[in-house]
């Protein structure tokens, strides 16, 4: 008995961990499991549910708009991952070469990340339409404009953030390795690909993970920029929202007025979680293998 309370860390540890643990359980663990439970139910209020088994999952997978938004989101995630990381790394590389005003550039490039997604979406929709209206069109009228518009928006917002992580990585590349490469007569290009990049692999791991999951989870910017427009109006009057991504599709399903739709939305959300978690873990283990020990 005495032993437990001997160490003040042990004695007070739970007291200080308590609030955070409680908040984590209330705000994350409990809703998570309740969400999984609800995906097997038909419900209007979460306090009044009817168990329906796998019905919701069947409905979700039969939904053409869900599959459309899945492929659209996958394409978006891959393209945005490439652009954000290549450009973010390039910016970080340029700003660690000792150019004048590096700190100012870093701050300025990072700033877009501080603006909320909804605000960004509306601002960019005005910018895009300011240009597109000269050509008699709008970002809401062409799927490809909506797609590339969202890519531009996300690059603008995320490059600065990834850049900061890459800068930290670049600064921790050991000086002696770089010097040794220089003495051995390596060109700048060789140094970059053979010394620098292998040494920043941990940063690349974390940045690709972040941009991949961000790409899949994207919601605010999608809602504010196009909200799924343009729609394809099918002959039977149903619609395919051509620029609707997974998260927005789930939201729209959940708040559809069909009494069964909330359960279907919930089932989609569980599928979505499995997908994002699976992809994220697969990508982590893949890039981890390429990290070198310093």
């Amino acid at each position, binding site marked *: 008995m005495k032993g437990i309370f001997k160490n003040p860390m042990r004695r007070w540890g739970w007291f200080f961990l308590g609030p955070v643990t409680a908040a984590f359980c209330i705000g994350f663990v409990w809703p998570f499991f309740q969400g999984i439970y609800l995906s097997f139910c038909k419900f209007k209020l*979460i306090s009044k549910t009817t168990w329906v088994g796998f019905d919701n999952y069947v409905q979700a997978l039969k939904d053409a708009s869900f599959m459309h938004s899945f492929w659209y989101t996958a394409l978006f995630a891959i393209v945005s991952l490439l652009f954000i990381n290549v450009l973010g790394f390039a910016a970080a590389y340029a700003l660690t070469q000792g150019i004048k005003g590096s700190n100012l550039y870093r701050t300025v490039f990072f700033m877009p990340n501080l603006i909320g997604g909804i605000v960004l979406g509306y601002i960019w929709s005005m910018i895009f339409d300011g240009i597109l209206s000269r050509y008699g*069109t709008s970002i809401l009228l062409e799927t490809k404009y909506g797609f590339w518009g969202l890519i531009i928006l996300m690059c603008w917002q995320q490059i600065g953030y990834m850049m900061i992580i890459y800068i930290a990585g670049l600064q921790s590349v050991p000086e002696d390795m770089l010097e040794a490469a220089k003495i051995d007569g390596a060109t700048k290009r060789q140094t970059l690909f053979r010394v620098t990049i292998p040494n920043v692999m941990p940063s690349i791991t974390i940045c690709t993970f972040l941009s991949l999951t961000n790409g899949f989870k994207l919601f605010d910017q999608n809602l504010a920029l196009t909200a799924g427009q343009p729609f394809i109006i099918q002959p039977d*009057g149903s619609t395919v929202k051509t620029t609707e991504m997974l998260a927005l599709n789930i939201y*729209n399903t959940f708040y559809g007025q069909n009494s069964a739709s909330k359960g279907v939305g919930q089932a989609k959300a569980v599928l979505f979680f499995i997908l994002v978690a699976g992809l994220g873990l697969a990508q982590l283990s893949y890039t981890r293998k390429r990290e070198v020990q310093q």
Partner: protein
Amino acid sequence: MKKILALALTLVMIFALAVPAASAANDGSVYWLNFKPELDETAQALAAKYTEATGVEVKVVTAASGTYSQTLTSEMDKKAAPTLFIIGNQAGVKEWGEFAMDLTDTAIANELNTDAYNLYDEDGRLVSIGYCYECYGIIVNPDLIEAAGHSMDEIKNFDGLKAVAEDIHVRADELGFDAFSSSDMDGSSSWRFTGHMINLEYVYEEREAGAVWTECPAELTGNYMDNFKNLFDLCINNSLTDPKDLATGGHDAEAEFKSGKAAFFVNGSWEYAAVSGDVPNATMIPYYCGVEGEEKAGLNCGTENCWAINDTASDADKQATMDFMVWLVTDPEASAAMVEQLGIMPYKSAVESTNGFLNDAAAYTADGCYVMDWATNYQPNVDDYRAALVSALNQYCADQSDANWELVKTAAIDGWATQYAAANG
């Protein structure tokens, strides 16, 4: 310093956990989940006043614009759920009717002066009752019509409206103002067309069938889409803004009308307070769209503002809520404050309306014109249905081809059947 900070943070945490448990009322209390953001200030003030006078606790929460169903969904799940909430249309009755108390022959129902704005469920239970009604149509600035050398008497049907609007548009540079204000299709404005103007199609279908809808029809005939097109085309093609620039919006139609840059403004009676200061003679005309006999058309009158009492609340809370509602519509000061915000209230003891547009509506009715009811309240899966219609109208505004109008028709007519099946499947 750090110690003090840590202590302060700990205290904050403890209080944050402790406070919600502290409040508990024995007598009935009222929790009104309000639907109209513009009513919030008045409602809060009236609630405070009522609490002061009677000691009954009244809490008013207003859902942010366009998020009522989301807010209601989460609030209804709480222990202290709203006792007074809004069921504004038949879709709402379907979704929330089972949570609503039957208001037949209750104190508040006995104060009503008309049954026209009440909503019943399939079993004939009175689930919600109108607390105000509104009207919409085309707001006109008669001074500008006269400045252009025309008179309001010329506008008695679609041909008259078209002649005046097109003439003003052609001479816009010389006159210094245009016919219609901008018809933006973004979320803040598209409802004027996908929620209101489209109503003319539904209403004339009702009139053709000879009876107003009492439940959502499974499908539409689409016989009056050409009439909708007449008026919509007139609006977008004789306006300050190029139709191609309407999709993302960003124009302020109200300001255009108030500043005298446009003579026509498609909107409703809730705009009266905003525009009557700058355009004191502003008046409202019906949706003239080329239907035979439309010289006898009136304004679109109806409401989505209907109170329901939460049946799952305690009896004391239900009684307190009922007393509060009765006070709102009978107390001279309270009802005056409500009428000032809402325009008009269909209750025996509520004060008279000061809203010019609602008085216009009454004048049309007095002249023997038919009221266009709010058939639009039956739109199935309303958000999805309207979103599809907006997307189709965007395509059409960018390129007014027949093929694109076919898309609008598909969205409005076939979309109705599809959404009906989805909502009732």
